[in-house]
């Protein structure tokens, strides 16, 4: 169910934003290994965010944006919109797929 999956990823994004700052440690001044505990939380959270982003690129990249089917052969020129577009210049000097 793509719609449910989309809602799930939006929820994940919101959670990543909300807890980048550890609100539950407000006013806390505990120091661990010379650095405030709340800063350790943040560092760990950013590493976690990177892992979640990696998972997203593996599982769901294109969700909510790509409308062509997942089939690799259905590239950028597979739909009606392509007929109304301006003619694309040939990929000059680049490695456009």
């Amino acid at each position, binding site marked *: 169910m793509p719609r449910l999956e989309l809602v799930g990823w939006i929820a994940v994004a919101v959670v990543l934003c909300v807890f980048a700052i550890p609100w539950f440690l407000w006013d*806390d001044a505990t*120091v661990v290994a010379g650095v405030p505990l709340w800063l350790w939380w*943040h560092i760990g959270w*950013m*590493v976690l965010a990177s892992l979640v982003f990696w998972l997203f690129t593996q599982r769901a990249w294109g969700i909510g944006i790509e409308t062509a089917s997942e089939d690799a052969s259905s590239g950028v020129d597979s739909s*009606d919109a392509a007929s109304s577009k301006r003619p*694309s210049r040939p990929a000059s*000097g680049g490695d456009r*797929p």
Partner: protein
Amino acid sequence: MTLTLQLGIIVGYLLLALVIGLVAYRLTERTAEDFYLASRTFGTIVLLFTTFATLLSAFTFFAGPNVAYQQGPEWVLVMGLMDGIIFAILWYVIGYKQWLLGRQYDYVTLGEMLGDRFGATWLRGLIAGISLLWLFPYVMLQQVGAGTALQALTEGAVPYAVGAGLITAFMILYVVVAGMRGIAWTDTIQGAFMLVVTWVAMLWVLAAVGGPGVATAALEAEAAQHLALGSDHYTPQWMLSTAIVIGFGVAMFPQVNQRFFTAGSRTSFKRSFVLWPILCVLLFVPSFLLGAWALGLGIEADIAGGDNVLPMILAEYTPVWFAALVIAGAMAAMMSSSDSMLLSGSSYFTRDLYRPFIDRTISERTEDLIARIGVVVFATASFLASLWNPATLFELGDAAFSGFAQLALPVMVALYWRRTTRAGITAGILASQLFYLSSLFLAVVPATYAGWSSGLVGMGLGLVVTVAVSLVTTPAADEREAIYFEGLGAD
């Protein structure tokens, strides 16, 4: 000795940049698309570091540590949320969709992308005009910063006008010759350099004072409240307002937004997205902790009087040559942000104002030439403006991030909601811009609302107006909403 060394390092950097620019020029086709976007060819490393260096450079080096010094290290959290998470998500939500559209329809600017979909050249001009309104004073601030830094460095031997003038002339030469490809290559070297130097600086200082435990204990003795999360300055409203507004603003800043179009493949887009939070935390933690620790280590910086704490703590604990290297790097960083802004400013002017409204018939080659002339005009004008020293422009420059943030939500609504109409997005953009400008310049419109900044309130207003007006209007006959919703994919 220090002065010669610093100037030597700065000149050495400039020469290196120029060599890279010349190499890039040899590889460049004489088309506007190549000049602005390097023909959409960037791989992961160049894409990642050019965005990184453009985004963070001078501010991270100087202003960030100053904030941490004055108010405590919570600034790491604000910047981490703003750049590491919010901007990364927008990298996908706005950036990836823009990249697909740009590749399919050859868009070079944000205004072009919106104008085409909504079938309105004047909308394209409006977006470019608003962007230039905020970009121009921001470029001017960079010139003021560089000129003032040179003046301070040489103890007045190089007066402001000469220093800022020289730097402007160099930037013009460099951007005109190198284009996007050369700029991105120097950014890449610079981004890596910044990262390494910041870590070496932190380790050096820590080795000298006896480790992070000692440094933090000293800070606790001096200002215990800096270690506890939150303060009168760092309220939740302030932290969130700042992170959200600047995070969205960054994505609409022309030199960052245009980089969304430059990726060479879907893979480079994905990899940059994954590495982004780690890269941010790797730079922010050492840079801002140094600023915060400086207070405990007895560095007495008069921030309001123009001192920067980072050079001062380096001068105290590291050899002269190293401190000089970092300062030269920071000045170079300032210039690297400015050259990207000049290039983008020129492309907005040429593509969205000159070509549609003055001469539609120009060839690719002529457009490339006009783009280069545009760089000269833009940089010279902002330099001249900086000499005249206008208060209004300074205020606009300081508020540029919030100003750009006002564009973000109407653009996102247009990208993701089919029923957005031309009238809706135009009303949303105008209402939020007018509201935010009024909050800056009119005393009757407050700057904060129960602790939330007017930038954030303006964003909400833009969202509501865009949706509401779209609901009560019907699309004009020449709108082409299918462009954004059909046939988008990447192989």
